[in-house]
């Protein structure tokens, strides 16, 4: 009998520790450190509740790599300028943010920003021009995240990096990004702060998309003293100038932002924003249905069902994004490298309408060219790549493989998770119909990145999401021979594309520049290093009582975090309570 009691005791111990562990405050948590007890805000408390599908590795804008971190940082920080929809609402324009005015002079080489007076960090200190200088230098500093590698175009940027690299060697490892190079007399010559409210940035040569770079999250203005004091904690509890500040942050669980009353445009209407990590989009949708989120992503393959559900269809928001999915060919080696007809045959053999409607359930629009709608220089009249089985047959014959005879199976690599699998299976069937046999090779993301960069994948499926709405970010970044093996993963080396992309960048007349980019795009399509597939859409469910998001989602907005939406103006409508009960 004693063993029976032993089991009863064992069970009681387990159940008791299960209960007790929950009672103890989360030991060692960030929220615990900040002395905050977190409870998810309920409906009607003035907090917008948003699911995020990934844990942001850091909220330090200098190191932001993920979409989620980017979107959350947009609420906490400001940049000198920002992208906002223009009057037509169709494309994005550069609008003032921390800078009340800006001008470009010296033939496009000198940018002068005049800061708004009285802008304060969350700590209450006023923002001055020196903060802008230091924040931008931190991006150029060797440890900084160099998505903005184009900042090397700033006068003295490369010299600063070299000098900083040497200086850094004298510092304890890991501490360098939290060290003050300006105190050591280092700085970028081309970034100047002549007085408290003026910032001058001088470029080595004109660079048309420069203002777009200044609107990106990594270019956010940071308070130097807080970065240096908080060190890596700055990534969890960052201090900025934005309408919200971090009140609680539990990595892998949730982030609570609360309104910053000293925001320069006045306090936000929301009390705060509660982000919670929910890995599965289908779970986020169920939470949304149960009224625990005010926003939800649309899980893959669910769009049609949501559209036919009367309670949800009115809450759906569809926006086209600035991305292009494609099949890329390795232009240096592999069966398609020296055979333009084979590449064109494949471009003609893919039925993009079918991919978008049947496979992606309407969550994308078919692509004709490289540039997605919403990018200046996008050409709605472009004939581009299209589905044409007869043309595919002719091109295949010209390639030396009539009806596919003699063509060995081609290896198509793709990222195993996400929509790539479904899309590539459909493409495999479509190509088989044209006589082209394809072997599918799924790879996990890290492996995929490494192998495509090293040029080991003869054909691969990938998508490019614009960093900023400018054709340079497509036609130069993805096809210029200077970047072959880096962002130019197809390793395209074509003098015509290089010449056109370079000329477009030098051209100060926007219309002429757009024409040059269009010519570059036509050359890309003719050369066919890519089979363009589709442009993604951002599909979201937004509760009816949330005002200020619907209709304001911009093409830059991907995911539920909506970096392009101004959350300062978002509010819960007064009929919120009725809406919840319904």
């Amino acid at each position, binding site marked *: *009998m*004693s*063993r*029976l009691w*032993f*089991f009863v005791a*064992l*069970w009681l111990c*387990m*159940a008791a*520790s*299960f*209960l007790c*562990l*929950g009672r103890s*405050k*989360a*030991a*060692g*948590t960030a929220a615990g450190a900040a002395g905050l007890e*977190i409870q*998810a805000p309920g409906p009607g408390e003035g907090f917008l509740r948003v699911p995020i599908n990934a844990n942001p*590795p*850091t909220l*330090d804008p200098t190191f932001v*790599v993920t979409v989620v971190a980017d979107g959350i940082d947009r609420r906490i920080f400001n940049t000198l300028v920002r992208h906002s929809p223009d009057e037509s609402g169709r494309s994005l324009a550069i609008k003032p943010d921390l800078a009340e005015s800006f001008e470009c002079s010296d033939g496009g080489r000198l940018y002068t920003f005049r800061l708004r007076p009285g802008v304060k960090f969350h700590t209450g200190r006023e923002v001055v021009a020196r903060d802008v200088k230091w924040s931008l230098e931190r991006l150029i500093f*060797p*440890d900084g995240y*160099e*998505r903005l*590698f184009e900042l090397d175009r700033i006068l003295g940027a490369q010299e600063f990096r070299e000098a900083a690299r040497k200086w850094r060697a004298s510092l304890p490892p*890991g501490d360098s990004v939290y060290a003050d190079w300006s105190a050591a007399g280092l700085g970028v010559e081309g970034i100047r702060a002549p007085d408290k409210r003026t910032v001058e940035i001088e470029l080595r040569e004109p660079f048309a998309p420069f203002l777009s770079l200044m609107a990106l999250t990594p270019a956010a203005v940071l308070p130097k003293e807080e970065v240096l004091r908080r*060190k*890596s904690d700055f990534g969890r509890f960052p201090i900025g100038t934005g309408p919200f500040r971090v009140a609680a942050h539990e*990595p*892998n*669980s949730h982030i609570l932002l609360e309104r910053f009353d000293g925001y320069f445009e006045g306090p936000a209407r929301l009390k705060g924003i509660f982000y*919670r*990590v*929910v*890995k*599965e989009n289908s*779970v986020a949708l*169920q*939470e949304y249905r*149960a009224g*625990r989120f005010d926003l939800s992503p649309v899980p893959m393959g669910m769009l049609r069902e949501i559209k036919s559900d009367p309670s949800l269809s009115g809450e759906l928001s569809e926006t086209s994004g600035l991305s292009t999915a494609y099949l890329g060919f390795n232009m240096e080696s592999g069966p398609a490298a020296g055979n333009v007809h084979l590449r064109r045959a494949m471009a003609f053999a893919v039925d993009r309408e079918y991919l978008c409607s049947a496979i992606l359930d309407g969550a994308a629009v078919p692509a004709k060219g490289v540039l997605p709608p919403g990018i200046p220089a996008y050409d709605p009249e472009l004939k581009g790549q299209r589905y044409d089985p007869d043309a595919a047959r002719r091109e295949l014959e010209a390639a030396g493989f009539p009806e596919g005879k003699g063509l060995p199976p081609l290896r198509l690599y793709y990222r195993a998770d996400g929509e790539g699998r479904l899309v590539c299976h459909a493409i495999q069937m479509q190509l088989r119909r044209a006589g082209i046999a394809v072997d599918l090779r799924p790879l*996990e*993301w*890290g*492996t995929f*990145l*490494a*192998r495509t*960069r090293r040029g080991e994948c003869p054909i691969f499926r*990938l998508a490019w999401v614009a*960093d900023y709405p400018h054709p340079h970010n497509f036609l130069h970044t993805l096809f210029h021979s200077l970047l072959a*093996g*880096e*962002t130019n993963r197809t390793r395209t080396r074509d003098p015509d594309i290089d010449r056109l992309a370079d000329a477009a960048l030098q051209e100060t007349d926007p219309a002429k520049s757009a024409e040059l980019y269009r010519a570059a795009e036509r050359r890309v399509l003719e050369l066919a290093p890519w089979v363009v597939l589709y442009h993604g859409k951002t599909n979201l469910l937004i509760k009816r009582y949330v005002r200020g998001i619907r209709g304001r989602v911009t093409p830059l907005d991907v995911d539920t975090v909506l970096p392009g939406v101004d959350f300062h103006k978002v509010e819960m409508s007064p009929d919120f309570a009725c809406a919840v009960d319904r």
Partner: protein
Amino acid sequence: MWGYIARRLLQCVPVLIGVTMVSFAIVHALPGSPAEVLLGPRASAEQIEAAAEELGLNKPLPIQYLKYLGRLIRGDLGVSWSQKDLHVSKILIRDLGVSARLALGAMSFAMLLGIPLGILSARKPYGKLDNLAMGVSLIGVCTPAFWLAMLLVLIFGVWLRWLPISGYEPGSLAHLVLPSVTLGAISAAILARMTRASILDAMGEDYIRTARSRGLSEWRTLLAHAFPNAALPLITVIGSNLASLFTGAVLTETVFSLPGMGRELYEAIFNRDYNLMLGCIVVMAVIFVLANLAVDILYAFLDPRLRRR
């Protein structure tokens, strides 16, 4: 007894060193560089090279391993690369709390349901109750966790709205009910079948016949004589299952968005966060070793014959 425990503890040391060695080799054999994943598709070859240098990945593997082992002995698991500069030990302490609660909740549920169900089944083998219980437990063993999770979410979260669907709040019990049931379902089924089989084995023994001949009631025979003798294998099942519930709840933690160890390891693998991966594996190995040790000690405690060996 103490000598026995000390001996077993000493035996754990080579096991753990072996685990670090093998996992270090496997982690570094994974294709794709951490620097590559860390910097994303926009990074240049030069940046990736610089990052690899910074992370110490350019040194020979044995040197890297010895350095890691040196740090590990000092209790330093290193910093996470994917969670910018956060100490791995800090991350794991946080995750362990969640995983421990989940595992304990799941095992409490499994024991509460599985053992009584097994006893009831063994009371009248092949009777109606037995068939029903074994049928249910068969379904329990076969049900994929993901599917069961979605079913529970739909019923209790969306339709009835009794329980939260996902997420974790320190202090809230409600958030752990559905995950615990999901995770514990399979263990409950296994425990039920195991309990039934062990009791039925014991019921054929001579001492049961003796007990019956003394005129003891069937229940008393079952609980006081058959169950205690059938209980030892259950300890093994509970111990090893508890360890796997602790460390292997990736699916459950993902579906219910719980920040536990399983999900941490899963994400660390995708982010090629070597320190975090190794940290997770080492902690998991320690949990398994300790769970096995606890089972052995309990065995010794419950069965005096083992102590003397």
